[in-house]
C-alpha cells in the first residue's frame, strides 16, 4: 500500500497532469468515432465519455430561428455567461435528427470572447443542442427548430 502512494508516485502523477494541461489546443485529437455515429445519444455519449450534462439554460444563450426558412443554412449563435458557468473550453453543436448529429466542436482559448456564430444543416424538424464544456463541467442548452424540408443533401 505504501508503495502505491509513495511521494515519487504522487510527483509523477502531478507532472503528467501538468504536461496534459500544457498541451496546445491543436493537439486535442478529433473524436473520429463520435463524429461517425448516426445515433444522437450514442454520438453524445461517445463525445463526452458518458459524463452527466447539467442544464445550462440560465448561463447559455442559444439563438436559433423557431422555423428554419432554409434548413441547409440555419443560423446559430451561442453565448456563454462565464461568471455563472466558469471559463469556457469547448462548445459542441448537435442536431438530433441529422444523419451526422455532431455538426462541430469548437475549442476556445481564454483570449476568445465566449460567443460564436455559425451556420448548420438541419435534416428536418429537430432539437438542436449546444453542449458547453467549462472548467466546472458540462452544460447544455437546447431548442427545437421546425423545418419542413430537410437540408442535408448529398
Amino acid at each position, binding site marked *: 500500500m505504501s508503495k502505491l502512494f509513495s511521494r515519487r508516485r504522487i510527483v509523477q502523477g502531478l507532472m503528467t497532469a501538468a504536461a496534459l494541461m500544457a498541451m496546445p489546443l491543436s493537439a486535442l485529437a478529433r473524436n473520429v468515432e463520435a463524429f461517425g455515429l448516426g445515433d444522437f445519444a450514442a454520438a453524445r455519449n461517445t463525445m463526452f465519455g458518458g459524463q452527466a450534462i447539467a442544464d445550462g439554460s440560465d448561463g447559455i444563450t442559444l439563438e436559433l430561428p423557431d422555423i428554419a426558412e432554409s434548413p441547409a443554412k440555419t443560423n446559430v449563435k451561442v453565448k456563454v455567461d462565464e461568471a455563472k458557468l466558469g471559463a469556457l473550453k469547448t462548445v459542441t453543436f448537435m442536431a438530433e435528427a441529422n*444523419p451526422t448529429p455532431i455538426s462541430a466542436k469548437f475549442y476556445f482559448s481564454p*483570449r476568445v470572447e465566449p*460567443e460564436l456564430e*455559425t451556420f448548420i444543416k438541419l435534416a428536418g424538424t429537430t432539437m438542436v443542442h449546444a453542449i458547453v464544456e467549462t472548467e466546472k463541467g458540462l452544460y447544455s442548452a437546447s431548442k427545437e427548430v421546425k423545418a419542413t424540408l430537410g437540408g442535408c443533401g448529398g
Partner: protein
Amino acid sequence: MTDQVRSEEIENYTPRTRVRLRLKEADNAAGNVLSVMSMVVHPMTPGIERDAEDKPVIRDGKVSILANKTHHLIGWECKVNGEVVLSADLSGSVSKDPIINFSVRGVEAGDTFALTWTDNQGYSDTEEQVVKGRKKK
C-alpha cells in the same frame, strides 16, 4: 456508384478562404477586441449513402459514408501571432461555405491573423492577414 475514384466535383474544387477583420481599439491594447468574420468556400458534401426512399443507410450504428463522394472540412484553426485562439472539428452537418464569426481580446494593430483548414480529401488552405488599426484622428 461503386468506383472509388473521386467525383468530378471534388477533383475540380479550388480552395478559397475569406476573412474580414475589424479591430475595436481601447485605451490600452489589452482592451482591444478583434472581430473576425470568416468563410471558407467549400461544398461541405456529407457523402451520405441513401436508400431508395432517400433515407440515410446505417450500418453497425454508423452512417454509411461514400468515401468517393464525401467532401467536407475536418479541421479549422485560427492563430494570432502563431498562437492558436480558436479551433474546431467539423462534420458534413455544417452548412455549405462554412461561416464562423467570433472575437478575440488583446489583439494589436500589426499582429498577424491566420486561418488554416483541412478537409477529408486532402485539400487545405491558409489565409493570413496583418491586423490593421483605425487611423488616429
